[in-house]
C-alpha cells in the first residue's frame, strides 16, 4: 500500500451492479462473486483463494445461490479485490432489485439424470441478462436438468426444468417391463400383450423409461424446458405455476426477457414487489397472452396464479 491510497478511493462503477454487501462491523463488506450455475474452474478458484487470503477473513462463505462470498473485506480494498479478481476474469455478483446470477445443477454432461444442458443455459442468461435493473425487486432464475429438480426451480421468478416426452416404437419393444417398473409417475403399465401402455397425462417428462429401455424402443419425441413462473421464498413463499412446456434452449433468453417486460409494465406503482405477487394481484391472463404471442408452440392453454405456501406463522399481508 502506498501512502496515497490510505485515503479511500472507490471506483463507483465497481459498485453499480451491487455484490458488495455491508457487514455488521464498521468498514467491512462481503464480496459476492459471480458463479453462474455454480461451476468454478479450478484455476480460477486458486486465484480467488489468493485474493481471499490477502484481503478477506479466515473463511469464505458458499452462498445458498452458488456464489462464493469473501467476507470481512475492508471498504478501502474493494477496488483492489475487484481488480485482482479481474485478472482471472472473475466478476462480482449482484444484489438489490436486479436480475441475479442464475442457479443451475451440474446438468447433462456428467449427471445421468440430466436432460438439458443447464450449465450452457445458465451461462447464456448470465451473459445476456445479469444485472438488469427491474425497478421493483430482485429477479431470480434457476435451471434444473430434470424433474428431480434439485435447484427447486419453481421457487424462482422463472424456473426451468429439463424435460423429455417419450414415444414408444412398439415393434422394437421386447416386453421386459423395465419401463413400467422404472416409471415413478405411474404413467406406464404393462398391457396383456406384454407391451407398455403409456398414459401421457400422468407423465412428468423425466425420461427414466428411455434411459432404462434395453432395446431403445422408448425414444425422445420432444425435449426442452418445463417453465414455471412467479415463485419465490422468503417471508411469504410462493411456488411458481406452469406457463410453457418443451421450450427449446435457444428460446430461453427471449422468454425471460418477455416475462421481465410484463413484470416491469405491470408493477407500475406497486413499489418493491416480486413478480409472483404482481401475478396474484393482476391475474395471469395477460402474462399468458403476452407469452403466447412470442412462443405459441410452447405456452400452455391455461394456468393458475402462483401457489401460496402456508407457513403457519403470522398472517399474509
Amino acid at each position, binding site marked *: 500500500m502506498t501512502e496515497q491510497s490510505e485515503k479511500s478511493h472507490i471506483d463507483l462503477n465497481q459498485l453499480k451492479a451491487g455484490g458488495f454487501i455491508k457487514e455488521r462491523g464498521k468498514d467491512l463488506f462481503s464480496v459476492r462473486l459471480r458463479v453462474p450455475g455454480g461451476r468454478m474452474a479450478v484455476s480460477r478458484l486458486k486465484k480467488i483463494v489468493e485474493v481471499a487470503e490477502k484481503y478477506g477473513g479466515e473463511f469464505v462463505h458458499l452462498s445458498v445461490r452458488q456464489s462464493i462470498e469473501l467476507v470481512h473485506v475492508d471498504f478501502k480494498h474493494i477496488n483492489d479485490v475487484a481488480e485482482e479478481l479481474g485478472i482471472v476474469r472473475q466478476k462480482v455478483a449482484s444484489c438489490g432489485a436486479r436480475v441475479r446470477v442464475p442457479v443451475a445443477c451440474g446438468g447433462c454432461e456428467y449427471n445421468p439424470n440430466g436432460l438439458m444442458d443447464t450449465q450452457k443455459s445458465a451461462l447464456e442468461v448470465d451473459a445476456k441478462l445479469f444485472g438488469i435493473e427491474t425497478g421493483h425487486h430482485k429477479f431470480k432464475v434457476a435451471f434444473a436438468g430434470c424433474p428431480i429438480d434439485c435447484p427447486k426451480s419453481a421457487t424462482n421468478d422463472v424456473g426451468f426444468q429439463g424435460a423429455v416426452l417419450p414415444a414408444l416404437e412398439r415393434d422394437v419393444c421386447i416386453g421386459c417391463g*423395465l419401463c413400467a*417398473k*422404472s416409471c415413478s409417475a405411474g404413467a406406464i403399465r404393462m398391457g396383456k400383450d406384454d407391451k407398455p401402455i403409456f398414459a401421457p397425462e400422468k407423465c412428468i417428462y423425466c425420461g*427414466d423409461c428411455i*434411459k432404462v429401455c*434395453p432395446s431403445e424402443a422408448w425414444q425422445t419425441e420432444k425435449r426442452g424446458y418445463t417453465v414455471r413462473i412467479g415463485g419465490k421464498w422468503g417471508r411469504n413463499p410462493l411456488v411458481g405455476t406452469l406457463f410453457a412446456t418443451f421450450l427449446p434452449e435457444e428460446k430461453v433468453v427471449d422468454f425471460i426477457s418477455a416475462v421481465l417486460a410484463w413484470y416491469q409494465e405491470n408493477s407500475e406503482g406497486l413499489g418493491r414487489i416480486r413478480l409472483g405477487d404482481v401475478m396474484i394481484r393482476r391475474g395471469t391472463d395477460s402474462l399468458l397472452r403476452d407469452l403466447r404471442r412470442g412462443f405459441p408452440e410452447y405456452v400452455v392453454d391455461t394456468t393458475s396464479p402462483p401457489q401460496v405456501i402456508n407457513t403457519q406463522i403470522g398472517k399474509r399481508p
Partner: protein
Amino acid sequence: MHTVDLRGVCCPANFVRAKLALEEFETGEGIRFLLDDGEAVKNVPRSLKAEGHQLLSLKEAPEGYFILDLKKGED
C-alpha cells in the same frame, strides 16, 4: 447362468457389487441378478445399461424380488 444375489444390498453398493461381479465374466456371457423392489430395481438396471451391458429381461419372482438377466458388454 450364473446368479448374483444383490437382495438386501442398498444403492449404490448393489451397483458396485454388480460391477465387481461382472469383472469375473467374459464379454457376451449371460449373468442373472436378483434385485430388491424399490430403489434397487429402478436404478441398477439403468446404471448397468449405461455401462454398456445388454439387458435381456426382467421378471418379478412370486416372493416380490426381481430377476434381471443381462449379457456382459465390452470391457
